[in-house]
């Protein structure tokens, strides 16, 4: 069984259909980059997988959990599928360490010491060991985003979802976050990431999905898709972002 | 419970109620106008670099905001005569309410002018507008838009607050409750009816103010 399986999902906001009959399988260990124009439904797709949006039709299975079931245990799902947002969304009232340990203590029921150890570990992995006791507003955007990644990593999810996590950053801060992502990818994490960084998609992702008007328009190995687009839509999208 | 509610008796007092409504509205409008004039002076004085102006202005604002309107009213109406200043109830009411509103008006106006960002003024000046032109075309419109909601809700607050002046015998709307009570001995009905009349006034003014806001600040002039 695949780690993520979407079967014919449909999602509308009011009268507007945003995802139209989307089916998709993601295997364990795969790194999938999702690209597409603004408004094509990329974020909505990730949010549906994480149960933040409810679909009108179709089925979503994540790590064996049926997200679309009426009585789905979304908290267990989210424990297994971490999500990092464009706007970091760190908890402003907690320092870095407690941002990371909060869910470890509450969800995983770890004691303070065990949670603290994991926090030190993941925060060091994103290169912020010396910022363990800083508060979010004392960190740069890039540093905040790395903490958000660490916070999600600490839960040891089976799948990580990233929604344009470098889009809000100043250009000089993008590199440090992408390097952290690359490190996470190398460790075998299954990742789905919405990104506008085509070089990153080409070099790090195994597979690229191009979304267009609520549908998966192209899907295939990263280099192949990006170098030789089969459809005119992807071709024009790529020439728009690359120039 | 064997009390018969008899709201219908009160229908006889329509004329009194209408007269009360008119006086309440007069009081509210006068208070708003005088209060804003005082408030403008106080806001300018409070922001002035001279301590001789700013300290008394702040003292005024703090004193008024931290004491009850009712006590301020009693000082004006019952207290001033011992200094030889004898005022009619109506005049005492307008004075006390205006002095009270002045302190709140000053705060609203100050916040309004602060809300217009420096960058807007700089943008105006950099286009070659004079200071006066910038004030008139850039600052004034934005500041008015910023303070309008506060002024609108302040008007309703004043209208509700005016009822305390019934205690010195001003025959505004709330006073009519005591009058009707004294004629009918129907205290509960009288006070309920009058209190609900204020609700109607409040809702009507809120609707009016939203409409004005829409017409002035939201609607784009037709091309």
């Amino acid at each position: 069984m695949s780690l993520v399986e979407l079967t014919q999902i449909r999602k509308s906001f009011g009268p507007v259909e945003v995802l139209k009959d989307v089916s998709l399988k993601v295997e364990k260990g795969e790194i999938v980059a999702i690209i597409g124009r603004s408004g094509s439904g990329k974020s909505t797709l990730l949010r549906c997988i994480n149960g933040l949006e409810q679909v009108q039709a179709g089925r979503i299975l994540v790590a064996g959990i049926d997200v679309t079931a009426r009585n789905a245990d979304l908290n267990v799902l989210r424990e297994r599928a971490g999500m990092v947002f464009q706007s970091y969304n760190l908890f402003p009232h907690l320092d870095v360490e407690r941002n990371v340990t909060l869910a470890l203590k509450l969800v995983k029921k770890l004691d303070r010491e065990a949670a603290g150890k994991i926090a030190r570990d993941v925060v060091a992995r994103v290169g912020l060991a010396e910022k363990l006791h800083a508060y979010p507003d004392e960190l740069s955007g890039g540093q905040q985003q790395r903490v958000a990644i660490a916070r999600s990593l600490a839960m040891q999810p089976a799948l990580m979802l990233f929604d344009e996590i470098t889009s809000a950053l100043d250009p000089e801060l993008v590199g440090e976050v992408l390097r952290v992502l690359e490190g996470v990818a190398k460790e075998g994490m299954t990742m789905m990431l919405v990104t506008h960084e085509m070089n990153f998609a080409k070099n790090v992702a195994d597979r690229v999905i191009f979304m267009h008007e609520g549908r998966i328009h192209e899907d295939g190995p990263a280099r192949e898709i990006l170098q030789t687009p089969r459809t005119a839509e992807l071709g024009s999208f790529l020439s728009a972002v690359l120039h | 419970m064997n009390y018969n509610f008899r709201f219908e008796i009160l229908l006889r007092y329509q004329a009194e109620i209408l007269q009360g409504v008119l006086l309440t509205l007069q009081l509210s409008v006068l208070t708003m106008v005088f209060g804003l004039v005082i408030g403008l002076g106080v806001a300018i004085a409070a922001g002035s670099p001279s301590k001789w102006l700013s300290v008394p202005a702040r003292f005024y604002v703090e004193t008024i905001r931290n004491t009850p309107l009712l006590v301020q009213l009693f000082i004006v109406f019952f207290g001033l005569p011992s200094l030889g200043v004898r005022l009619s109830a109506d005049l005492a009411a307008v004075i006390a309410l205006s002095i009270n509103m002045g302190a709140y008006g000053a705060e609203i106006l100050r916040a309004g002018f602060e809300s217009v960002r420096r960058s807007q003024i700089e943008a105006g000046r950099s286009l070659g507008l004079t200071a006066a032109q910038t004030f008139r075309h850039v600052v004034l419109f934005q500041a008015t838009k910023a303070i309008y909601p506060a002024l609108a809700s302040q008007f309703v607050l004043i209208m509700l607050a005016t009822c305390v002046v019934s205690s010195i015998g001003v025959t505004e709307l709330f006073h009519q409750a005591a009058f009707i009570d004294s004629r009918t001995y129907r205290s509960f009905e009288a006070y309920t009816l009058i209190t609900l009349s204020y609700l109607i006034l409040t809702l009507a003014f809120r609707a009016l103010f939203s409409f004005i806001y829409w017409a002035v600040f939201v609607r784009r002039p037709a091309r």
Partner: protein
Amino acid sequence: MIREFAGADVVYLLLAARWTVALALVAMLGGGLLGLVIAALRIVPFKPANWLAILYINLIQGTPLLGQLFIFFFGLPLIGIQVDAWTAAAISLSIYAAAFFGEIWRGALQSVSIRQWEAGASLGLTYGQRLFYVVLPQALRVAVAPTVGFLVQLIKNTSLTALIGFVELTRAGQIISGATFAPLRVYLVVAVVYFVICFSLSQMSRRLERKLHVAR
């Protein structure tokens, strides 16, 4: 018998001020509890509950407190509850305060971005955990200053209970003013006592606002 306004009268006023404070405290507690309910009704995803809360808030904030006081003072006996001025005042002010607390706290809760709820959710926190560990600590920070600020309004508004005959600071002032014929001096002393109470609270609210604004 007309006498001089003397030191004993100041003491009498100060003793009466205890009732002002007591009334405000009762309204703060009663109004606080009811205010929590109003805030909850206002935000739960159930339309009729929202409407009920909005109706309550509009009724209370759209009518004069003085009218509400008289309605309770005259109305409670009609439904068989004999009340003195103190009880009518305490009930009425609690109901009044609840509308304001409800709105202040709802605003504070809603000032916390929806993204914070989502971030909590994406970590697997339950609804309750998100509320208690993520949203409430942030909302509390926003709510503290306006809550203390409203207490100033509450203290000032207790003066209206003088008009239904409850002997608090303002009513005590009326009584002494009648006995001494020194209204100016009496009401100035009354005003000073209010000022001391309210100004301390105002300053506290301001300090809290500044402190919670910079701190996390």
